[in-house]
């Protein structure tokens, strides 16, 4: 497959935040999300059932409401609470380290991938890439299970994105998150 992409971009605050959100989404095991959701549903059901059937004195009623609140917290943690915390932290981190964030150049052809900025250059055969993960806003290029480079989707055209998708799907290194 013939592929040739070369783009230079500057990481904006929104890109950085999206990258952090995408990374968390990719690295969070699906089982963790499922377990927390199940726990949340159980807590809400138990709290509601106890409130309707047992009720009891004021302290017990507070306990049932607390149980429902814990359930709601568990249920919304990965979808609402965690993204809000990450956004806040990433925004703060970006402003604090703005000087260290340089423009990056990525190059990709059917043999090699490279990513260059002022202080870091990585030039790898495509087989050395661990995985490519695509989220709604970012393309993450993993060099191992944790270290990665990223390209905001706004940098790539729809056609380029399609090429990347097809190319890495062909070598079994593509994941849609």
């Amino acid at each position, binding site marked *: 497959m013939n592929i040739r992409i070369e783009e230079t971009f500057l990481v904006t605050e929104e890109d950085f935040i999206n990258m952090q959100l995408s990374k968390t989404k990719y690295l969070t095991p699906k089982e963790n999300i499922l377990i927390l959701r199940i726990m949340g549903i159980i807590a809400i059901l138990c709290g509601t059932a106890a409130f309707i059937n047992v009720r009891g004195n004021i302290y017990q009623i507070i306990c049932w409401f607390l149980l429902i609140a814990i359930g709601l917290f568990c249920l919304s943690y990965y979808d609402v609470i965690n993204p809000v915390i990450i956004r806040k932290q990433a925004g703060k981190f970006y402003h604090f380290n703005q000087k260290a*964030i340089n423009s990056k150049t990525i190059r990709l052809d059917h043999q090699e991938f490279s990513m260059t900025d*002022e202080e*870091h250059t990585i030039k790898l055969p495509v087989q050395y890439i661990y995985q490519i993960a695509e989220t709604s806003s970012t393309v993450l290029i993993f060099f191992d299970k944790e270290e990665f480079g990223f390209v905001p989707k706004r940098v790539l055209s729809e056609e380029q994105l399609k090429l990347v998708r097809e190319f890495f799907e062909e070598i079994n290194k593509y994941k849609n998150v």
Partner: protein
Amino acid sequence: MAAAAAGNPVMSFKNKLKIREYSEGYRLFDLRRGSSSGREWKSSVFFFLGLAMLFILMMQRFNIVKLPVCAIVLLISAYMCTHYVYMLPKKAKLKGEHIFKSSKLLSKEYEFEIYKEYFVMKNEYEYLKRYYTDITDCLETDNIFLLIGGIEKRITVISKRCLSEKKSERLSQYFQKEMIRQYRTTRSKNKGRNAK
């Protein structure tokens, strides 16, 4: 590769990591900056929460039916305490091993050049220049130097196995001098004395 570093390096050496050295470095990183950081106070919170629930249950003569929430919170607290104290550090070491196995780069030989204000690590696939001011933590153990830095919190592990005792001591003194605030050591005293 990227622009060449200016001036002569203070020291240069080659380094090739082994899986146990990287996993040791990753465990330390996890304790300091990763998910295990602050595990002491997190486990303390759950410990005292569990203790409080146990006290409340004791007052009710362990009538769990009467206070099911307390019993559930006690169970969760006990689990979280074990999770932070025992499971998390073990998991971190295992994760480090997984990362090392998944990477084609970490097992490759790197050439390190130590300059006055930064260090450079390079091989045929990668070039990284890192200023000491961008380093958030510099940790030294009996076997490795661990440098954590950059916006991506990248970990750089330098194995002492690849350095002579003299060079290792020189590097240790150099890092201590250049990164006064970031430098920490967990080196055993005997080894330190022997090195001197």
